């Protein structure tokens, strides 16, 4: 029996020895000796330990304040990981209220000749800057950083802005070995939790009693007569309450890695967000923030920078009367008002669902942010008798709004309900048109807010395909050089993209860039129509000459019928993919090519006509070729029918592009007669 106990005790102590101590300063030799991350050998650095505690504390004279304690232990494996030894803490401020940082302590640990050496971060490594009107920044960089070192730091942030609890981020660009997080709120503050990301991370929930001790000071005497002695007495009273705690304890969180054609990597990052639903102090009415999308909409709508701004109309009345005059057709009115706002008020590049200086000022100064421009547009459309409503949007950069949060939406556009369907409008975009929204807003679903405050979801992705049709007449000579003419028609988003690059660059530069994109194509008679007339498709045409577009070998000529227009590379190179592929909008490209053959040559062989389709009607590629006498004719169709493709289809999609590239590169063979 005794020996068993000994064994158990031994086992137990071994256990203790093996498990890492995460107390501040308890960095172990094993941690310093680690050469690479066992979970991810490509990691340049890793969080060995990452702890965050966010909680409320009542301070006399200040009220409830939000505190956040941070403790991080970071392993730096190599030089590429050195930048993790530098940290920046943003502290927000608004007029006189501001966040502050305190208790900042940090050390670097190195293993020197088998001994742990610690270096303290001193004042000279801490830098405070006023970054701008809204942010003070505290930056620090650790001393004595070498490959293999461990840095550890902790600090406390005090914030008066308890309505905005920073998101708890669980997944980073480097792996996390052990993560602890805790959020505590008194019963007066009711928060809603939203979790996102590929890893499912759930908190443990509990509640505890807590109390606030109020100290009262009262003074007697000292009435100014000078004779009486002053007496101050202190008394105290308690307020007890329940606090709710949720805590996270997660081990081995993998790094989040970027992939091409992902609209916003943060959509997939593991994180938890606490959104304030309501505040209920004892003996006071409830103050609501958000719990549901209806609440979000209500809060935004009732904000004076949204609803009230939307309802203002006096500032433009006469102008709109004059503008629409006798035109009664709704579509005509939409077009007139939309163009009017676009030309009248320019976007100052600030996004936002709320106005800044207000619609009236924006109208007068002819400059405004997103909300000013699009709320003004909505208001004018309503004034003209149309069923117009604002639509809240989350931009691509802001991520997909998965849960009801006020920050979930950061942008607003306009919509008009017509019998034939809804038209979406964004007047911040110079080259936009009805239902052609800028790509920053093409992000899943928006939320339409009606006059009565009700709301519903609306798909933002265009249903209509943007098209590009190319017609080419080309003559090939016996040296393999070509000349010919090309005519391209582009619609919708494709036209919009063209307009941005064509109208916003120097014309000479545009032409030179075009020539150089096709590796030195020589262009003449270049002509673009409808560049400024957004209601019509773009028409681009030019004549071209290009050398060495076919291989002349012996008495044979080999060439691809698409010449310089053919796709050369598969855009999808990664072996596998975890996130959806985002094309932004559905599209259709058609090319019709007629090749005149050099005299004295005849067709020996043509590639076969063929068609490839993606499953579930996601897309199709058709290649139809025919030849007779001295002419070859090719019709090529490529369609992607959806704006977003799920990663389930990644292999299929990659194969689809592979076949498309292969087909476009197949050779025609001519022989000398």
């Amino acid at each position, binding site marked *: 029996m005794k020996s068993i106990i000994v064994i158990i005790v031994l086992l137990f102590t071994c256990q203790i020895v093996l498990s890492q101590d995460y107390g501040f300063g308890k960095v172990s030799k094993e941690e310093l000796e680690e050469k690479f991350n066992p979970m991810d050998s490509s990691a340049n650095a890793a969080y060995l330990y990452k702890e965050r505690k966010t909680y409320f504390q009542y301070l006399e004279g200040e009220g409830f304040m939000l505190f956040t304690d941070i403790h991080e232990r970071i392993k730096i494996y190599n030089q590429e990981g050195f930048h993790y030894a530098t940290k920046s803490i943003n502290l927000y401020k608004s007029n006189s209220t501001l966040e502050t940082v305190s208790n900042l302590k940090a050390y670097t640990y190195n293993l020197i000749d088998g001994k742990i050496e610690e270096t303290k971060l001193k004042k000279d490594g801490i830098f405070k800057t006023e970054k701008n009107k809204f942010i003070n920044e505290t930056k620090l960089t650790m001393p004595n950083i070498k490959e293999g070192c461990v840095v550890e730091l902790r600090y406390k942030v005090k914030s008066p802005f308890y309505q905005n609890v920073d998101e708890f981020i669980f997944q980073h660009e480097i792996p996390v070995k052990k993560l602890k997080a805790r959020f505590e709120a008194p019963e007066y503050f009711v928060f809603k939790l939203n979790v996102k990301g590929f890893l499912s991370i759930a908190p443990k929930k509990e509640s505890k009693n807590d109390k606030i001790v109020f100290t009262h000071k009262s003074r007697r005497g000292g009435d100014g007569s000078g004779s009486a002695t002053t007496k101050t007495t202190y008394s105290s009273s308690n307020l007890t309450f329940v606090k709710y705690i949720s805590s996270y304890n997660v081990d081995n969180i993998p790094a989040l890695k970027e992939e091409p054609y992902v609209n916003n990597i943060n959509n997939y990052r593991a994180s938890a967000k606490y959104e304030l639903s309501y505040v209920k102090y004892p003996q006071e009415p409830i103050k609501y923030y958000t719990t549901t999308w209806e609440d979000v909409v209500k809060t935004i709508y009732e904000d004076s920078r949204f609803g009230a701004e939307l309802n203002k109309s006096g500032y433009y009345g006469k102008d709109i009367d004059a503008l629409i005059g006798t035109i009664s057709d709704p579509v005509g009115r939409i077009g007139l008002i939309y163009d009017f706002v676009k030309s009248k008020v320019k976007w100052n590049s600030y996004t936002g669902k709320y106005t800044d200086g207000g619609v009236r000022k924006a109208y007068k100064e002819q400059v405004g942010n997103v909300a000013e421009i699009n709320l003004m547009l909505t208001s004018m459309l309503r004034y003209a008798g149309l069923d117009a409503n604002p639509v809240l949007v989350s931009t691509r950069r802001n991520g997909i709004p998965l849960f009801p949060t006020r920050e979930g939406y950061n942008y607003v556009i306009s919509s008009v309900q017509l019998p034939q369907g809804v038209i979406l409008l964004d007047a911040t975009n110079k080259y936009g048109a009805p239902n052609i929204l800028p790509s920053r807003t093409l992000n899943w679903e928006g939320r339409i807010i009606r006059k009565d405050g009700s709301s519903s979801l609306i798909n933002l992705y265009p249903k209509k395909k943007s098209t590009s049709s190319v017609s080419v007449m080309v003559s090939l000579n016996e040296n393999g050089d070509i000349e010919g003419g090309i005519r391209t028609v582009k619609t919708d988003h494709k036209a919009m993209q063209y307009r941005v690059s064509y109208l*916003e660059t120097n014309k000479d530069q545009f032409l030179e860039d075009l020539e150089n994109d096709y590796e030195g194509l020589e262009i003449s008679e270049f002509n673009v129509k409808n560049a400024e007339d957004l209601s019509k498709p773009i028409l681009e045409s030019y004549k071209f000459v290009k050398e060495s577009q076919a291989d002349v070998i012996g008495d044979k000529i080999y060439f691809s019928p698409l010449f310089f227009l053919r796709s050369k590379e598969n855009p999808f190179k990664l072996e596998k993919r975890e996130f959806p592929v985002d094309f932004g909008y559905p599209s259709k490209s058609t090319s019709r090519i007629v090749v005149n053959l050099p005299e004295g040559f005849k067709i020996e062989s043509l590639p076969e006509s063929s068609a490839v389709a993606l499953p579930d009607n996601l897309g199709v590629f058709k290649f139809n070729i025919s030849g007779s006498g001295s002419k070859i004719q090719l019709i090529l169709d490529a369609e992607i029918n959806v704006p977003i493709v799920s990663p389930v289809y990644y292999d299929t999609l990659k194969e689809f592009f592979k076949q498309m590239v292969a087909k476009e590169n197949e050779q025609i063979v001519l022989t000398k007669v």
Partner: protein
Amino acid sequence: MSIKYIIRVLIIFATHTLLSQDHLYSSLTIPENLSQHANAVVRLNEVTVTLESSSEMSVREKRIITVLNKEGNENINAYVHYDKGIKIRALQVLAFDAFGEEIKKVKKNDFKDVSAVSGGTLYSDSRVKYLEYTPIKYPYTIEFTYETVSGNTAFIPSFTPIGEYFVSVENSTYTMNYPETITIRKKEKNFNDDILKKEESSGRIFYEAHNLEAFKPEAYSPSFRNIVPEVLLATNEFVYEGVQAKVEDWNTMGTWFYNNLLKGRDHISEKTKQEILRLVEDVTDPIEKAKIVYNFVQENTRYISVQVGIGGMQPIAAIDVDNVKYGDCKGLTNYTKSLLDLVGVKSNYTRLYASPRDQISVDKEFVSFGGQTNHVILNIPSENEENIWLECTSQKLPFGFIGDFTDDRDVLVITPEGGKIVHTKKYTTKENTQTLTGQYSVSNEGSIEAAFIVVSKGIQYDNKYGLATKPERDLDKHYKDRWSYINNMTIDKMSIDNDKDNIEFRETLNFKATNYPKIVANRMLLTVNALNRNTHVPDRYRNRTLPLKIKRGFKDVDEVEIILPSDYKVESLPGKKTIENKFGSYTSEVIVKDENTLIYKRTFVINDGEFPKEGYSDFRNFYKEVAKQDNSKIALIKNQS
């Protein structure tokens, strides 16, 4: 002459000047040649620099600029830097529409005010006030005026009428007022008398340039700063952050710099001193000692940039770097120098202009404190052999290798005996080599399987050494992009050997890909050059305006064995090709080894050099011909069986 008359004259004069500038607010009055290639036109730029003494300088500027299109918004440059030493006295912007009507006024307090910390810097005490303006319509005109005062006179603004591409200048003036006790030095660059007017009288220098057409960027052209007109100015006496200086030439500048900003900043902790002495204990060769020290610095420090006050030019003390183990270029260079002093190796602190794109020299004849340099490296002088240069901010570069960041330019070497101008290492065409040797085979189905080694040296080493520390996933992507003309590639082996002693980068690669040759009926068309194909053709210009400049040459040598598919035999082979001209040379040849094996040999050389603009199209044609030759194909035909 009555008072009345004088007043009338004054009024006329005043309205006249008002009128004469008024027309500049309208976009309709721009001369036609100035709107060519221009995104913005500087209508008038008046800079007035007043030196009250060697310790007080004010700068006043009024700039009227018409913006023609969206890209021209970037050329307004309505911002002013300030810090503890520079005070902003006045700051204002007026905006005008195309007809010259004022549409907006922005006062000093309406400017945005932010910390001027740029990307690579952790902290700086410099701040900037800048204009945020959304144009309502193009064209429009901005008048930007400011005045600053500073106790520093070390950096006197130069007269640079054209600061950017795509900007033309209608009129630009520069006035300097100074006390006669101060001597002004100046250097005029890239001016001709047509465009530059100057007046000099005692205590006043005046320059005027007008009608300067916009420059347009072109590939393979000299650095912008080396082609635009510029007048550099400096004084013999100046004050920098409270320190007085009097210099005549580079030599005395060097002495002053050494005595006031470098001397006495070399103390090292006893611990580090013992460690360094132990490391070099049995070493006698100074170069070997220097290598050990450089390696020590690379392993123990990192680059962090902090700029405060005098720290803009003076390195933090070596002991501070020793304590925190980081520093900026000045701090790390001074630290390395201090360690080299300890082991008895002489080295010199060196200021220069660093940029891979622009090899800009410190002017031999024009002495100035700052303005011509932006970086610091270390020089180890050598009596008989080439100087050794050390880039102390890099933890990765081999000893003595500076790469394209600081190569081939004049720099200021500061020694206790004075300053001197020295030229840094030039990487010559024959040093910048890439040698590729290996083999590929093609299957009957059209798959290719390749195994080869690429060895790079000189600037070609510089282009690749960063790959040594890339994770596998990024490397895989890099190689697929580098051989982007081969589709459907799977890489089976990527192994990298970064030989820092010999400064050689060796990549060993194996890959497979399907559909490499084009199969047409019973023929196969095989592009011989599978592994080092030049697809680059320099951009074509309808009208080349700038001279041709090839900053660095290179030499590629390839030898590849090709195993043909067993079911096919050669129908036709490309012939041997040799091209030679002043820009370089090219040879390629396919040798039949046996029925199934070919040997492909290729060399491609581009020489560095500068040529008149007329040479550009020949240069481009050379590249075009190489691209064409690199695309030549072998026709294979199926065996009759």
